[in-house]
């Protein structure tokens, strides 16, 4: 028997890398389509809201409350942050439940030397790649519209990815814990949509009544919008931005720990 050619004993480190071909094969099926959507949607948004709506807003004398910027400049970086957030929601909910419940690909993966944490890290790697594509394509659109001010604006892309991951890891935990997909619909309606509208992307949260303003400020997206806006427009407030980065990193970290536990429980029952 040729059992001698069987696989080598696993080194605990390389286990994440062994998934590279797997995630690459899945990514290959979708990246072109998502790159196009990622380009077309921001262009439409910026034309309609930034340029169209912006003409009214600017002529109405709202500059002061927008921090002295055009409406297009105000809204465009916020839209980048919300686009990455929505992408993170899409990538961390249904596909995760599918890999547990429908296709059961995670179950296939844990039958190999991979451990649940390796799978979590590998899948987050794919999500990070998707988020990078979304942020980078959106960023190119911002450059075309003349919104981005270099060199700070370059950092808007990694900042955008951080915003996405701050949503991805807790949602991954949610998806790994949730029994039925109806929970996603509910979350989308009462979570994603209000967050999208009220996290300071379209108007400053200071316009909200106080309790709602505080609520908005607890949301990671608010910090993402503020961070990305300052960087994109070349006017970062370094101390505040450090706070935003730390807060987003906290969401990433706590989310990761929760996802790790939820996935281990769900797969290792």
């Amino acid at each position: 028997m040729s059992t001698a050619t069987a696989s080598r004993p696993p080194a605990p480190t390389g286990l994440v890398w062994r998934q590279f071909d797997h995630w690459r094969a899945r990514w290959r099926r979708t990246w072109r389509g998502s790159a196009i959507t990622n380009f077309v949607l921001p262009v439409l948004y910026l034309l309609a809201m930034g340029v169209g709506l912006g003409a009214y807003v600017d002529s109405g004398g709202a500059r002061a409350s927008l921090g002295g910027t055009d409406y297009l400049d105000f809204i465009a970086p916020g839209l980048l942050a919300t686009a990455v957030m929505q992408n993170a929601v899409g990538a961390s909910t249904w596909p995760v439940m599918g890999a547990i419940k429908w296709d059961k690909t995670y179950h296939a993966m844990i039958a190999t030397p991979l451990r649940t944490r390796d799978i979590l890290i590998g899948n987050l790697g794919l999500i990070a790649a998707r988020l990078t594509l979304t942020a980078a394509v959106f960023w190119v659109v911002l450059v075309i519209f003349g919104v981005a001010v270099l060199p700070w604006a370059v950092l808007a892309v990694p900042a955008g990815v951080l915003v996405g991951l701050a949503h991805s890891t807790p949602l991954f935990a949610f998806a790994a814990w949730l029994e039925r997909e109806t929970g996603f619909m509910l979350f989308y309606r009462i979570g994603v949509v209000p967050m999208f509208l009220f996290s300071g992307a379209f108007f400053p949260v200071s316009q909200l009544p106080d309790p709602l303003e505080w609520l908005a400020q607890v949301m990671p997206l608010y910090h993402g919008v503020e961070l990305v806006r300052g960087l994109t427009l070349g006017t970062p407030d370094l101390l505040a931005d450090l706070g935003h980065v730390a807060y987003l990193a906290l969401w990433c970290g706590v989310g990761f720990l929760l996802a790790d536990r939820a996935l281990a429980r769900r797969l290792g029952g």
Partner: protein
Amino acid sequence: MGAQSVEQAAAGPVEAPVEALVEARNLRKSYGALEAVRGIDVTVRRGEAFGFLGPNGAGKSSTMRMIAAVSPASGGSLRVLGMDPGAEGPAIRSRLGVCPQDNTLDSELTVRENLLVYGRFFGLSRAEVARRADELLRFVQLTDKAGSRVDDLSGGLKRRLTVARSLINNPELLILDEPTTGLDPQARHLLWDRLFRLKQQGTTLLLTTHYMDEAEQLCDRLVIIDEGVIVAEGSPAQLIRDHSSREVCELRFGVDDHAGVAARLHHLGERVEVLPDRVLVYAEDGEAVAAAVHEMGLSARSTLVRRSTLEDVFLRLTGRSLAD
């Protein structure tokens, strides 16, 4: 003896080959309050085909998942390939092949891609997985489907792909959880033929089934499991010898009350079983039973004489039929 120890010394420390690939003692699994596996003892030896025969819900899959080092045991002890699944899961899993009850194939990838990416999880090089993938596609006769999407495959082809995938790392122990459930007879026979070849090549097989014919065809030894406990163990022939007669006479009468008729048949065989639609008389000579029934003036609507099977053993031991 001497030469062997010199060889071993020259090759450096060599792990002694484990002969008991699976050793379970009083193994248990609970899901909350539900006890799915209630203390089983099993030893699977290298090179044999070992089966778990039992009805749905008996605890077969729960046991397979513990042995496959993906689900922790709730009690008792378990060694797989000489190692502890709780502590050395990745090392154990790198040497197992697992064909789970559900196929768990990646429907977004092609047939061949499913094998390629899976082989990489075991740390095999791209060149090696490519070679193995093509070899295994030939082995399960899926070469012409290599580029197809998994979604487009029939149930039988998906199962063959899952078996091929479980072999990508050249496993020492192949675990098959209900390998042919839901397949049509032709697909089952093809799969049995492949599994039989693997067995001939020396791969140790551990399989579960609720088909007694599958157990009889493939298993050197098996346990019959019911409600989380093992009710009998042995080779198929041994089990039949120990727990049933050589032959069975199946009688269907045109009456509702088979029990009433059965009461008059007890003297004809070693044992009589009453099923909703028929009476089974267990005896060394089934034809003689049939003739005696005829002489008694009882006209059976149909009479069938056959050899005892594992189904009869299960009925004897649990009072129920496997298909329930």
